[in-house]
């Protein structure tokens, strides 16, 4: 963090991002690249935890895996949108099945960003940067 070279790369400027995924390795990798980009990263491993954190913490963005235990990502997304506190919170959805099936089958995920697995961790960072720059 004290490395000046790294400082340049830090674009996050301390913004808080929640990463929710039940796969520890994926969670770890996303957390790593986001932290390296200067974001403050919180993690959750299931739907319940995700909602709890989302409600209790001040967040700037959520990266949400669709397939999660307890409460599915899809349901988490719906509840986030219903809650006034979180309804405008940007969400990036991680999915292994691509964009087509959820859209075709009307999962009610309109207005979300999709990242399909396997993804590039740095691609996610860029996407997050992009979203947060606009907001």
């Amino acid at each position: 963090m004290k490395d000046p070279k790294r400082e340049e790369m830090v674009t996050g400027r301390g913004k808080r991002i929640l990463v929710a995924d039940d796969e520890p390795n994926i969670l770890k990798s996303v957390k790593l690249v986001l932290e390296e980009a200067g974001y403050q990263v919180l993690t959750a491993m299931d739907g319940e935890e995700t909602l709890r954190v989302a409600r209790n913490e001040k967040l700037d963005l959520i990266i949400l895996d669709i397939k999660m235990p307890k409460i599915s990502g899809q349901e988490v997304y719906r509840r986030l949108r219903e809650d006034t506190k979180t309804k405008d919170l940007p969400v990036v959805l991680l999915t292994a099945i691509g964009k087509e099936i959820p859209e075709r089958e009307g999962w009610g995920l309109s207005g979300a960003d999709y990242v399909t697995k396997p993804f590039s961790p740095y691609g996610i960072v860029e996407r997050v940067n992009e979203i947060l720059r606009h907001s």
Partner: protein
Amino acid sequence: MFFKEFLNRQNRIHLKIIVTFLCFVLFFAIAQTLWTTRRMSRDFEAHTTNRLHGYTRLLNEVIKEHEDKVSFYAQFMADVTKLSDELTDTGVGRSVLIYLLDSLKKDRVRIRLYRGFTTDQERRRLVRKGLLGIRTTTLVEEHTHGKSVLNIAAVAPIERAGDIREVIIAEYPLDHEFLRAVEKKTGADFTLIYKGRLFSSTITAPLYNESLFDLLDETLQREIVSGRGTVIRDVPDPSNPRKIVFNPLSVNFKNLGIYAVSESLRQVLLNKRRIVFQNILITAIILIGVVLLYNLILSRITQPIMDLSSASKQVAEGNLDVRVAVKTKDEIGRLGESFNVMVNQLRQSQDEAKKRMDELSRLYQKVTDERNISKSILDNLSSGVILFDSDQRVVLINPTAQQWLGIKEGQIKGRQIVGKPKDPSLEPLYMLAMIQPIENLIQCWKHFDYDKGGCPAFRSDDPHCWLTSGTFHRDEIAAKHTEKSKECAECDVYQRFRTSLSAKREVKFEEVELTKPQHRVLKVAVSPVFDEHEKFLGRINVFSDVTSEREIDRLKTEFVSLVSHELRTPLSSIKAYAEILLKRPDRDRGQQVEFLSIINDETDRLTRLINDILNITKIEERGVDLEKKPLNMPQIIDKSISAFRSYAQKKNIEIEMKVENRIPKAWADEDTLLQVLANLLNNAIKYTPQSGEIQISAARLRVDSRASKEIEVKVKDNGIGIPTQHLDRIFDRFYRIARPQGGDETGTGLGLYFCKYIVERHGGRIRAESIEGEGTTFAFTLPIAKKSRIRIKPISDVHPANQRPYRGELREKASFLVVDDEKRIRDFLRYYLQEAGFTVYEAENGIQALELARTMNPTAILLDAVMPGMDGYAVLKALKEDEKTKDISVIVLSGAEDSKVAMGLGAADYLVKPVDGETLNRAIRDILAKATDSINLDEANVEA
């Protein structure tokens, strides 16, 4: 026969007629008899009376005659007497006298000369008697020999010198003889009564004469004598009735007595009897005549009619072989002929009708058969078929359709299926009815059978069809209607309409998803139905159940999406860390190693995943070939545990095996069962922390404390447990529980799915129980091997044709000693070996075995490891220590798999029980091969 016919019920009418007739005849005969006899008796009485009067008169005349005769003789004798005095001496006087006396005798006249009145007193008596002085006749009562006779007497005085001193008396007796003479002339009976006494009678019966005086009392006698005249009386004697006429007997005009003339009425009775008899005779003759006549009528008229009647009855009952015999040429004969002709014709027409009926019934049978075929096709069709008529009414609905739609034919037959149903159970049917053929042409097709008069151009109400058929274009409809209708009559509009609509008779397919009566996806093919005249009859919906196909499709999609998800997850990690490493190659070594090992682990996971997926796909596609056999559970469990021993030791986990005593064998496939146990054990070790405990147990499953036909195997750990909400899903494909602190490798979510699949394929069940943080128990059941499944193969199975037989010379020499405490096993082995041609010795314990081994020196010994007293290993040791027996090959048979001890002691082979024929065969062959080698070796040595 005649009476039989009378008694016959059918002839009752004849009987009635006959009886009535006979009654009439009898009545007539009786009346006639009565009438005749009465008239006869009346006539006869009158006649009798007349006759009696006649006889009376006759008797009076006869008496008068005799009166005159007597009178004449008296006078004549008086004259003669007077003369005789003068002619006394002349011959003339004598001859006259003789002649006179002769004639007197002949006429039964008696002459007496009464002379010498001595006194005047005597003279007066005579005068008083009327005999003196008067020539007269009278009745004189005479008593001679005690018998009274009544005579007609005439007295003629002989005057001599003016003084009458002598009289001549001529007498004629009114005696029996006289009456008999009269009777002879008349036939009547005569009786003379004088002064109340009976003098003579033609009847000698005293009863009669007595009864006469009952009728004739003194008063009546006086009256008759004094001039009352004739009196008629009946003698009421029932045995001999008579009629009697009483008359005064008048002599010289003086009534002096009474005579009775009677005639018997017996004749009348006889006549009466004769008439009755005659009448009976006549009646009988009439009866016989009637009967004969009846018989004649019967045979000539009635019998043919009765024959006809019975024949017509038979015809009516269907017997057309009946003919009546025609005997006469009269009306009845002609009737019979006509009857025969009629029956003949009837028979012919019936034959014809029968032929036609047969033909019809054959035809009907054919039609019925065809209909039955169609019906059974429809009934057994696995597709649903509903036929709607042009008005949307259900004409036909086959059982499959009824079942799928949850309705009964009776519910909807003839109902128009339009709009919404009132009965919610009919909803599925209405859903099907909603599917219309292409472009809803039903209305248009209905127009097909219109002739030109019904040309669609005239039907301004149905522009839809014109448009559909292309007969008109949209803008033409209103404007050119009139024009087109003219055209219709002349040109080919109508034809075009038909052609274009006919072309649209395609089959339309649509899928309908029903929720009632159960979830079902139906693929419906709707086709219009036309008859040969192109008339639209309706449409037919044929539908098949594609629920499972759609379900499979859905599962396939789901599987693909799951698989892609599952594959992408490790891939994501790999890509992420690879990129992280590439982007910043300057990371410290610790991080580099960490990331690379993540990549390595995830690659492994990916590989396992792909393998599992391939495995599962293979199983699902082709199934597993389960080679089921009786499995010894302790062995199997032991085997599976030993495979995981090192893994468990790493985590310092103890695995305990707990098997019920005398547990029966399981009926299962060894390989897959081991895989199931491996999966469960792997999970147990993975989710159990350091120094945990795992227990595998097997026991016969008990239901309500009664042993069932199943074994239950449990794998129990005291690990982290499974959260309750996951318990019912953990056997699902790819289902995994997120475990951040999970083991050193990540599961594929296919292991338990595989376990479930295999256990169920064995006919068992699998379940999981768990308390989070305390541990998990997986339990599954397996069926028990039935006794009959125990593999003691019949020998014919043991060495089939393709198997190499033992070499002959060896078989001759080789012998076996079988040692086992269980007779069943000894029997099996002995049987097997003897069948193969070997000599077999048996021992049931170690001592026996050693002795036999020494004395018999068998080629090999089959030795049971576990025996009471001296066990197999002790025997083996003893055998090997003895010079005499140490070279005998010993095959140890054991329930345990551990062969080390036995082999260490010098066993030639080690077989695990249960031993099947094939294993035994192989072992024996190996032993024998060694023996042969040694023999050959020996021989070589000898030669050398």
